[in-house]
């Protein structure tokens, strides 16, 4: 099992390598010249040329990439053009807020989405089902920045019970959690419903009912244990997507996290931060996918058997 874990970890490396090439190319396509950006409009041509030399921007692109990759492997993502602080340091400073938000958002998504999907499936083709399914679809369709503003309007302006920005107390976390988790919640609800409907029709559920065990046991032991397998996959995939949502959430609620770091860096043409930030996001997504794979093995003994065989 442990060996399988490392094997999967190895798969992550080419993907991250690809991401590094992609993001490096994207950033170096940018029209702005970092040296110009750093020195501002007052700089002379000579100053700019000197700085370009100093930053290694005169070297061929593949050499620049080689240097970037070599440093990145050592955990050095360069220095921010704007603040001159190491990019890694900036990322680590911002990461806890983003991680907190992401985990809270996921928890919200599961806690609300799962029961919504289960209820919808159990009451299939009734108004309860229609309502749950519609709510899920609405959650999936409404832009999260709009939800953010509407929540703010309602809970910070009309009924001022929650602060509209900052990251100091638990009160600051409520609205961002909802905003970040609502789409994943909708996806989980939809997936749970369709997965439930599929599992309910399985022969083994009928077998379980034929044993005369309680409805609760049929639901938890025989239905949900199987329903969870595809739901975990989707939730895991969406976690990556949801991670992107922090860009919006952090901007709207003025939370100093990774998402805002990247948006600000793009606006300021601070390319080392963009590069490093995107790479870090990709790493997070990769790790989450890895964890989902492992969770899979816990949920499904058939997969676990394959893991053992892969030893």
């Amino acid at each position, binding site marked *: 099992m442990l060996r399988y874990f490392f094997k999967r970890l190895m798969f992550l490396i080419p993907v991250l390598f690809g991401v590094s090439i992609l993001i490096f190319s994207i950033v170096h*396509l940018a*029209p702005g010249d970092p040296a110009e950006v750093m020195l501002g409009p007052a700089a002379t041509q000579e100053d700019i040329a000197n700085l370009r030399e100093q930053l290694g921007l005169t070297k061929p692109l593949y050499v620049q990439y080689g240097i970037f990759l070599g440093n990145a492997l050592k955990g050095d993502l360069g220095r921010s053009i704007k603040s001159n602080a190491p990019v890694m340091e900036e990322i680590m400073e911002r990461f806890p807020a983003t991680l907190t938000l992401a985990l809270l958002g996921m928890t919200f998504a599961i806690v609300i989405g799962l029961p919504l999907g289960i209820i919808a499936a159990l009451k299939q083709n009734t108004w309860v089902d229609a309502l749950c399914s519609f709510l899920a679809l609405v959650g999936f369709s409404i832009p999260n920045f709009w939800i953010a503003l509407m929540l703010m309007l309602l809970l910070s302006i009309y009924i001022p019970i929650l602060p509209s920005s900052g990251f100091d107390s638990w009160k600051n976390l409520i609205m961002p959690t909802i905003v970040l988790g609502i789409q994943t919640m909708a996806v989980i609800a939809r997936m749970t419903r369709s997965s439930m409907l599929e599992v309910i029709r399985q022969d083994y559920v009928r077998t379980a009912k034929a044993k005369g065990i309680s409805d609760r046991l049929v639901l938890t032991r025989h239905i949900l244990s199987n329903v969870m397998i595809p739901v975990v996959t989707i939730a895991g995939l969406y976690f990556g997507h949801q991670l992107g949502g922090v860009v919006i959430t952090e901007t709207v609620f003025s939370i100093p996290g990774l998402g805002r770091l990247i948006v600000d860096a*793009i606006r300021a043409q601070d390319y080392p931060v963009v590069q490093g930030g995107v790479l870090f996001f990709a790493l997070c997504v990769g790790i989450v996918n890895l964890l989902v794979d492992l969770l899979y093995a816990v949920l499904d003994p058939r997969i676990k058997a394959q893991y053992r065989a892969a030893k």
Partner: protein
Amino acid sequence: MNSERQSIVTLSAADGKTREKRRSPWWEVWRRLRRNKAALVGMTVVVLLVVVAVLAPVLAPYDPNQTNMTQRLKAPSSAHPLGTDNFGRDMLSRVIYGSRISLYVGFVAVGIGAIFGGILGAICGYYGGRLDNFIMRCMDVLLAIPQIILAIAIVGALGTSLLNLMIAVGISQLPRYARVVRASALTVRGQEFVEAAKAVGASDARIIVENILPNCMAPIIVQSTLGVAQAILSAAALSFLGLGIQPPTAEWGSMLSSGRQFLRQAPYLTFFPGLAISIVVLALNIFGDGLRDSLDPKLRQ
């Protein structure tokens, strides 16, 4: 020949009991879609929005960019049903014109994603082997970065413009079309009619266009409908962040963004554009869901 084969496929996929006469496959789809009330509502709303977008100059009571400093931040009234913004521009007109940009961006971005993704997917599925492996690993790379962050980075590099926005959103959606088409192409590849086409010496490109693509149409259409919804959301999000359509162009996302500073005094500046986005996206999603169920009942996830 193709359409006939498809109709057989569709019919056998349909209920064995219904002994309908063999009609065109799209008629069959329409027959199933008609039974789905929600999908019909979604479709109607989408069609209405397209009509609104096309007829915007006729429908809008004012010029969307006409500023009027005497009419700043007016609440909704009979003269301005959705109020006016901080430059005195009529919000109703701006929301109506906004539908043009949103639908345009949505469809073009999906067009970019679906065409390039579709071609890549068809190549992967048809040739298989190393090429397939390489392209799919590239798609994994794209998927490893959260969509919105990828789009932000691309727009950041290319600069903010309508075209770049569509390219960014299109590229970030590319992998899903590649995957869908690849999966269909894989199932078609080994089938007899493809072998037969090869035997009579048809070129690979022709086989892909004539035999493989028609067989992927159903999933592509479903993915595209849902994709347009996603694209509209992403584009609006980018504009909201100031990385998409720039003011003063009437675009829902950027209208929301500029209305944000007046959230307290003039909440209608953020309410209506957001409502408009929600309605479009919801309608597209409902329609897409219905389409998926009626194009192939077995396609349901």
